[in-house]
């Protein structure tokens, strides 16, 4: 499984990548912002996108919207990663069309598992 990680924080990216690949056995590609994410998604055809909500320039929701606009990327499930854990926020994000929401901080040891759970893949 190939996952595209989008977060403007390199540390987060790093840890997430380690967690997903080392622990979860996934293939990980990275993007540092929303724009990059769109390009990446188009090029690398990931199976899922783990998308940080709060990013400069193009924030998570906007990125998602763009992804949906592009037929090449529209079908890729997107999981938000957010520091706000409130139900309202979760609902909001979900309502935007995300497949799920994971909260920061996350445990890299369980991240892959959780991602799979959210995506509904075994």
């Amino acid at each position, binding site marked *: 499984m190939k996952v595209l990680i989008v977060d403007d*924080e390199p*540390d*987060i990216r790093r*840890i*997430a990548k*380690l*967690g997903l690949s*080392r*622990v979860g056995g996934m293939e990980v590609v990275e993007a540092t912002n929303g724009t990059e994410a769109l390009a990446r998604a188009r090029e690398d055809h990931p199976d899922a996108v783990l998308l940080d909500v*709060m990013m400069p320039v193009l924030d998570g929701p906007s990125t998602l919207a763009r992804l949906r606009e592009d037929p090449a990327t529209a079908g890729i499930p997107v999981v938000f990663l957010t*520091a*706000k*854990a*409130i*139900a*309202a926020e979760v609902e909001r994000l979900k309502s935007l069309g995300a497949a799920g929401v994971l909260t*920061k*901080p*996350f*445990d*890299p*040891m369980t991240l892959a598992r959780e991602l799979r759970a959210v995506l509904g893949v075994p």
Partner: protein
Amino acid sequence: MRAAAPLPDREPERLQALRDTQILDTPPEADFDALTRIAAAICGTPIAVVSLMDADRQWFKSKVGLAETESPRSDSFAAHAILEPDLLEVRDAQADPRFADNPHVLGRPHVRFYAGTPLRTADGHVLGSLCVIDHVPRSLTPEQRSALRDLGLQATAQIEIRRTVAELRRAVAERESAEAALRRALDTAIPPPPRSAPSSTRPGTLALAALMVPLVLTLAGAQLSRDRLERRREERFARSVDQIADAVGDRLAAYRQVLRGGAALFAARREVRREDWHAYVTGLGIDQRFPGIRALGYIRRVAQAEVPAFEARLRKEGLNLPVRPVIGTAEVFPVEYIEPMEGNRAAIGFDMGSEPRRRAAAETARDEGRTVMTSELTLVQDPEQAPGFLLFTPIYAHGADVRTVEGRRAALAGWVYAGARARDVIGGLTVRVAPELELEVYDGIAPRPGALLYDSAPPARGAGGDGALSRVRVVTVNGRPWALRVTALPPFDADLPTWEPGLILAGGGLGSLLIFGFVWSLADARRGAIERAERMTAALRASEQRVRSVMDTVADAIITLGRDGKVHSANPAAEWLFGRRLADLIGRDIGDLIPGLAAAPSGHIDREARRADGSAAAVDVAVTPAAGGDSFVASVRDVSERRAVEQALRQSEQRTRSILDNMLGGLITIDADATIESANPAAERIFGYEPGELVGRPLAGLVPESVGDRAAYLRTAFARAIGRITEWRGRRKSGEEFPFELSMFEFTGGGAGRHFAGSVRDVSERHAVEKLKGEFISTVSHELRTPLASIRGSLSLLAGGVLGDLSDEAREMVTIAERNCVRLIGLVNDILDLERLEQGRLQMEIGEVAMADVLARTREAVHAFAAEREVPVEMEPTTVAVQGDGARLVQVLVNLVSNAVKFSPAGAAVRVTVRENDGRVRVEVSDRGRGIPASHRAAIFERFRQVESSDAREKGGTGLGLAICKAIVEQHGGEIGVESEVGRGSTFWFEIPSAPAADRFLEMFRVADGRPDVLLADHDVALLGVLVRQLVGDGVRVRVAYDAAEAEQAIREAAPRLLVVDLGLPEGEGRRLLDHLRAEERLSLVPLLVYSAQDVDERLQRKLALGPTRFLTKSRVTDVEVRQVVSRMLAAEALEGQS
């Protein structure tokens, strides 16, 4: 289809009670007019009436805004109102099936809204109602309803006073007419008695007297008559008796004469021969002239020796009759001659001396020389042997000396005798004298049975009746006494008026009875009249008593006055009121007591009562003329207490109002239909409404359009908001939406129905702050969390061996670092949570939450943890639901259960129970841990507290958990606490209100549209009427004030959308009004239309203006134009207000 209102119970009595008040069809009175004006002003309706429900009509004692004085009962709203125990309110008559097709609704006066309070008297009859009517659908605030009820009570009190006065008048009239009747009755039935002794009133005596007198007279008369009769009878009888006696005497005297004659014969001749005797006797004609004499004869004295010669002589004549009986006496006295010979022949030779009686009589006659009669004997020769007698007349020898007895004896020659049958002698007498008399003749001096000589009426022939008149007369006949008994026979009375006494008695008796009867009836009539008089007097006294007791007990002072204004009478209450004794009141001029009270007015007046001690009391006086018109009844009520109460009430109201007006928080009260009953200035400010604008509006008007189904929204809002502080979105008058905080509660005392009050706080600023804060927190949380996440992630990877093996020590270090990092993250989370909770408390999503769900989620969250610590978590199943934020509740329960698990020894179960009780849900989490010492229990819910700081290290946890739980629970309107026993365990509990049934609170909402209202201030009633009609027709709600004072009051109560003022209000009131209004900030902006007779110059216009102001000159504009201007001004206002 409307149905006629049913008749109230006891309708006839009710109608009678109404009649008794004597208020129907009376002219309007200031008191009632005041009530209707007040009602209209307070309720803000153009129409108000005091309606009295007659049999077929409702009649208006007082009315505002209505021309009619009565209308049919069948069409009246009031007919329904009088059936209600309390106020009848019809919000929209068109929507009410009872009235939808009522002519007054479909046509004039276009009733849409009606409220009527029944006028109920003390004895429970509803005489009518005080009603207010509007042309638009609306409803009343609780204050308005309360006021309307009070006004109704006032109206009822007024009516009752009239009834009391009417009753008094009636009592006085009754009394007077009774007195007059009594006087009349006495005068006609009984003439005034003479000044002397009063006569007995008992009919008996008088009548008896009346009976007695004539009766006595009658009896006397009868007696008199009888006496007279008796006397007559007796006289007659006596006369008869005399006659008889005389007759008898005469007859016998006649016989004597006969014998004398005979004796004379013998005296005249020497020798009287038989033939001589015969001739003599025959010549007498004794048959006719001397009836009764059977025989006349001559007895010769014959010596015994001469007897044979005597006999021979006889023989010679052919009479062969011996002297017999032979008795051997010396002398014999045989009958020699006897005539008539026929029948008597046998007597010849009979010796008169042989029989004692004969002998006695004969000898007596010889001895006394007179005619002697024998006693009763029977003649020898009488074949019948009837009673008779003999008469002897002695014959002496010629020339003998017969002066002495001896001489006579010697000289006796013989006797001439007569023999008579008594019957014959006497018989003819009575027949001739008195055939109706019975004559008994007895020989002797008294009637003796054996001596009866003669009885004219032998018993066979009928006797005299009892008590028949009877007299005994003794007549001496021929020396012999005869007892004559004369008895009157019935025929004797025949021609006597013996009926006279009877008739007199009868007639007199009848007459007496008549007189008696007459007098009795007279006396009876008199007695009846007197009794009637007494009854009337008694009744009068009783009625007087009643009146007096009413007057005595009634609290009002009641005084009767004469035309001259002087007091005639007063009741005890008057004594009390004026501080004077009755004696001091009577005759006093009323002006002394109530200065300024003219004797003539009617209706109620406020005056002062002057007491004896100089003090004064405020009183309410009602003066009515008494029957007859020359006196008055004044009913005086001390209202000083009432005034004082009113004053106190006003002051209290002022205080309350002052508080309401000045408090910073908004306060809105609504009724169960969520119509705003009142809103204080702060609330008005918050929502951006003008003073008074909110009243009567539906609460829904304050809810944003964006909400959608406002009714449903409000319903749920209520359900959630009661007893809590909740936040809502509101809508200002300008349309701006804003958040406000509402704390709502139900209160009582606002009148019928449920009332709720809400304290309103505009939290938009706070929201803004919170938004900032939230954003800040959001930012900070992100800023804090991100590095933490990285740290944690790194450590986790390290610790997980993903990046290669570590030495034990290294791993230990990493683990430490990770653990603390987790703790730090938790701390940050908690702080942020708590902050958000405490500041942004309204972030909770309240909904209906099934506790079972909360339990399930909690279990899921703690399951692993509890299993790890080998602490079973037991949860009792429950079906309870609460209103709350499910996620938050889960958070609380997870916290509590986690704590419980944390502090429980392995194997000891943690129990969770959910109970509902009395509207609250109680959740308990029990553990068998160490327990919490009492000193800690209170503080345990504070931030950063743990029982011992060492626990934090050991057990983990930030110490914030319980504080957060407390905050969440309290936000739900609940409580949290702990029960614990050191060494045994603890039970943490929290209670929150369960889901209230929304429907219980609310009924259907109605979203009413606000109508613009216009206040017209003009004294010209006619002009007002015209304007009102027009504006109403335009759908404008109109209030009316007749003078500046009213107008000002009305404006203060509820500022109108437009004020129309006639500058021509008397005495410059119009100008003053505007000046007053201008002086107040909120009133100075009222849109104004000034209507004046003359043009107002520009300078004055500037001076008069309030808000948007227009000026119209009456003479220059038509009514239509005024209307147009009004409409335009209202429209402009509406645009500006945009409600």
